């Protein structure tokens, strides 16, 4: 990243109450930082929601953002996933121009990237892909050759990996 900026994926556990998302996003935007991606959903405990957000800044700025988030009364826990190993997924819907001559190739690309065709028209395919950021970027680059007509994407959501322990493996 330019100027020593770091891109960080933060996992923010919050009370599931009206206004909490506004507090979190307001805190970040109020300090002049951009949120690059955001996703929010209820957790297994309906009183708690998980916000996954991506923001970037220099290490002291990221440190401030994390501390300020922890200071919010409704924020239960903040984890900087980028610190450790984690899995991330994003979902994208894309409508591609699919001329007769290209249809087979597009379908095979879809298969290779484990996508799904959701809608078919005489001149387009609408497809769904999930994956990490890189995979999504790759498939979109490939599909762009045929002409992407429309594309929507969810925010990235993420979860830390469980550390593998030899004892665990023996027990199984």
């Amino acid at each position, binding site marked *: 990243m330019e100027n020593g900026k770091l891109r960080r994926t933060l996992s923010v556990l*919050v*009370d599931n109450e*009206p*206004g909490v998302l*506004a*507090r979190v996003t*307001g*805190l970040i935007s*109020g300090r002049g930082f951009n949120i690059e991606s955001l996703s929010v959903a209820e957790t297994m405990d309906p009183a708690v929601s998980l916000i996954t957000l991506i923001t970037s800044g220099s290490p*002291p700025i990221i*440190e*401030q953002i994390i*501390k*300020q988030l*922890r*200071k*919010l*009364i*409704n*924020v*239960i826990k903040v984890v900087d996933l980028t610190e450790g190993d984690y899995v991330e997924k994003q979902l994208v819907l894309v409508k591609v121009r699919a001329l007769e001559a290209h249809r087979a190739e597009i379908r095979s690309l879809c298969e290779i990237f484990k996508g799904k065709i959701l809608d078919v028209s005489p001149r387009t395919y609408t497809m769904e892909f999930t994956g990490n950021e890189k995979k999504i970027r790759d498939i979109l680059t490939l599909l762009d050759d045929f002409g992407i007509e429309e594309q929507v994407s969810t925010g990235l959501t993420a979860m830390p990996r469980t550390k593998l322990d030899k004892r665990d493996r023996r027990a199984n």
Partner: protein
Amino acid sequence: MIDETRSPDPAEPLAHHRGSGGVKPLRGIELTGAQILIECWKKEGVEVVFGYPGATTIDIHHYLKESGPRFILTRHEQAAVHAAEGYARVTGKPGVALVTSGPGATNAVTGLAAANLDSIPVIVFSGQVARMMIGNDAFQEVDIVGVTRPITKHNYLVRDTESLARTVKEAFYVASSGRPGAVLVDLPKDVVSGRAEFKYPGRLKLRAYQPHLEPHPKQVAKAVELLKKAQRPVLYAGGGVIMSGASEPLLALAERLQIPVTNTLMGLGGFPGTHPLFLGMLGMHGLYQANMAVQECDLLIAVGARFDDWVTGKLDQFARKAKIIQIDLDPTSIHKRITTEVPLVADARLALASILESLGEAPDYEKKSRPAWLKTIAAWRAEGDAVMDYRKTDPAGCTGATCPVWNPKTKGCRTEPIKPQMVIDTLYQQTKDRDAIIATEVGQHQLWSAQYYLYDKPRRFLTSGGLAVMGFGLPAAMGAQIARPGALVVDIAGDGSILMNIQELVTIVEEKLPIKVIILNNGCLGMVRQSQQLFYGKCYADTMLGRSPDFVKLAEAFGAKGFRAERVEEVAPVIEKGLAAEGPVVMEFIVCQQALVYPMVPAGQDNYHMLPFAQAEAD
């Protein structure tokens, strides 16, 4: 989610609950929301509520009159919140204000921001339109929870009468625990008029909010190591010392290791102002010896202070020879503006007590180096005092026709001009044995009050530091006088800022509060004018006030007493007469316009560059 329910009809039977969709059997004692609110206040020990009524808060005022704590009707909601802050600063307990929806709530915004920036526990209860009307652009509707979100520690929209008691409990807990702050509780009209069983929760434990108070032993040990080795240490103590009641251990630490102490504006009174180890305030208008000592020290111990830009000057040049120990309750204050060697996240009182314990009664520290350090400081103090002595220094030149002391015929001063510093100094001499509480507005008079009045005890100096609100002092003095009815409470003001909340003279007279107001009338907005003189080529754009009201007549019109001094020899007698007079008094002093607040570190400079001193660059 907000229940989509109709506003309750007062004639409706008690058992009809909104949101429950049917008839509930009566259990226990049911109270209206207004009654619940007042019962909660009583449980929290609220003695006084400041505010202004309106359509959405009538129910609350109705019960308040019947059985509530004392209500003080201010003449503006901003003043109500500042008064609550004044009360909180003097007592250490949360101050409470009650305002109506819409303009009542927006008028409270400045007060909330001020209290929050200075970490003072203040809770504002605002009326709101009925829940079904929220979002309809209803009469006097403002999304005040949205408006105040970034300027409060936390805020609440109470969603139903059942959750009111818990919310109030939580509001008091959040406002007064950890790093205190301002909290807003928005009360829809139908929540207040609705009914519910009253159950006040005992202890609260919030999943997401648990302030950390105890110092970490490892960090304490590291701090003690640095303290023992330091040759030129300085304690830099802020408002956190006052908040946590850490004055006693601070004094003990300073005396045990012979460490000089400087205070921030917010910290004044946290260390005795007359103590030989006291350096005075530091920062932009700090005293010479304080800034020099901090710039030259080898160990800086920050206690409940946040390295505010006003304190540090040019950041990368601030105390660059020093290692820093930073004691702060708020983790976000650590490494926010400055990187510190030993951060200690803890309550200031507990942290200092634990450091003292580890040091022992007769600690082994750099005793040999200390006399040299204190001698260096004494030399700086002598240099600084020469500039601070208003009797010996003459303001350069005369500002001419804009000055209230100007005589157009002789083209000079009418009389020997009163220097504003002299008024503060005379006030100090006359009141230093009376344990007075001094409130200030914001401007030159505020800084002279910080420099020339010495505060020996905490909670005696009430000033708006972070937000620096003009119009803060008069209402804050009201809160202080109500908290300590027997105390001498003085508001020091300028002719600009006093007019920002002058309407409160009515409240003061009405409530029989014997507050003494000192107005330093220099005919201008002096703080800005000073910058224009020094840095803007003497172009006094929009800072000349021209004709000021006759403050003596104004005081009399409000029902207070008024006195005026125009000559140097009148200053002491007017202060004496004013302080001796019963009831509220306004004393106006016509002062020289040319007087500047010195020392001054120009914006963007480091703290060695104090005007009017020559640059004292470090070797």
